[in-house]
């Protein structure tokens, strides 16, 4: 039937056209704009209050909190650190700060702690609920003294994924958010290796790939342009995932 042939041809050209449009630079710009619109809407819909991710009770905890992405760090240094119970792990706070910090695990545990039971949403679509404990990132940032030129916080990780160092970043709004913590415990126990031992970020208003694991450094920067691929994170650089992962 000619009509069917026409429809099939129209469908095929739509598909081919979309795949080609998806690769163009102007489409990328358009999506970046839409990404920012979503972020603006998410903030505006709070009408001035700080929007909070829902928190749950211990009855809601997932029986096993799935590990995804890197499930360990493939290096002798990490294996040695793991064998030593991560006693000598250090977290550096650097970049546009008045006083760079180098914190031990004891330093981190000595800070005021926040415990929150939240739902972790992977970009793939699944969710798991876990109880996370650690100091608020805002505490660390205040202690280091953030300089006014700082616009982003970059999270440096010990793991390589497909041979490249994993990293992530967020804006100051998410960095200073009360639910953004440097977690060292999951469900009341030290972080399991598959979930990012000994330290990982929790940035609860964004998807899972933002929650950097095996955390070694926190760096304040004015721009993300000159860090790795320049898109603000491993998945953003490697596969074009959206930098604002609140969608």
């Amino acid at each position, binding site marked *: 039937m000619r009509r069917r042939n026409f429809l099939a041809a129209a469908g095929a050209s739509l598909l081919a056209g979309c*795949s080609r449009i*998806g690769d163009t630079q102007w489409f990328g710009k358009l999506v970046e704009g839409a990404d920012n619109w979503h972020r603006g809407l998410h903030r505006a819909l709070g009408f001035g209050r700080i929007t909070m991710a829902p928190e749950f009770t211990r009855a809601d905890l997932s029986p096993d909190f799935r590990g995804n992405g890197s499930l360990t760090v493939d290096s002798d240094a990490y294996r040695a650190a793991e064998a030593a119970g991560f006693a000598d792990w250090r977290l550096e706070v650097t970049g546009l700060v008045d006083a760079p910090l180098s914190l031990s695990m004891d330093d981190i545990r000595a800070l005021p702690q926040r415990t929150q039971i939240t739902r972790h949403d992977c970009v793939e*679509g699944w969710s798991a609920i876990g109880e996370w404990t650690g100091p608020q990132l805002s505490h660390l940032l205040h202690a280091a003294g953030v300089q006014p030129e700082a616009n982003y916080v970059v999270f440096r990780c010990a793991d390589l994924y497909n041979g490249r160092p994993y990293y992530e970043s967020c804006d100051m709004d998410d960095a200073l958010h009360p639910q953004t913590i440097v977690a060292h415990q999951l469900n009341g126990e030290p972080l399991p290796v598959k979930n990012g031992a000994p330290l990982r970020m929790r940035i609860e208003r964004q*998807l899972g790939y933002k929650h950097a694991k095996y955390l070694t450094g926190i760096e304040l920067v004015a721009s993300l342009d000159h860090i790795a691929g320049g898109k603000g994170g491993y998945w953003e650089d490697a596969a074009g995932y959206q930098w604002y992962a609140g969608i």
Partner: protein
Amino acid sequence: MSRPRKRHALSTRLWHWVNALAVILLFMSGLNISNAHPRLYWGQAGFARAEAWLELPRFPGWATIPNYYSLSGARDWHVLFSLVLGFSLLAFMVAALINRHMQRDIFARAREWSPGNIWRDIVEHLRFNFDHGGGKYNILQKIAYSGVILVLLPLMILTGIVMSPGGEAALPFLTDLFGGRQSARSIHFLAAWGLCLFFFVHVALVLVSAPIRQLRDMITGGRDDAAA
């Protein structure tokens, strides 16, 4: 009095085509997103096969945007056209309330809901007689159009907000309304297929009822000669 009334207002026609484009692109990029984790759950959380209420098939490349598996590429289309869908629907609703298209043509009167009237309408449809009844649309059309405009499209938008961690934080009551994030995800998937079903029935009925005139009227506006 100078110009004859159009069968379809400009706002209706603009929205119809913008929405058609957005729904097609969102549906097909949505099938690509579904391929990333093809299982559905009820409640807040879930990732194991044992927790799923439905295991989905892998949707083939000819049905997805892009036409190969790319979660980030599909999300780009979704991120962009979710805004187009949401804001164009809002604009259409405001326009249709102001020009009274909604009250006059979309909302069904109480008497139209009588089983006798609905039954008569089904019989007329089966006889391929689509020009009957007093108003612009018959009761089956009103059910279908209001189902899409007032139920399915708003459901897609609201469940989409629940699935966005940033949107959920802004409007947390929505998550409870749908019974959790994974429930919202399941409803999003089901409502998408509801829209798909509407799309094919809608196109099929246009094709069997003066397709050239119907298409032309939805582009140019046509002449309002049916209604009083």
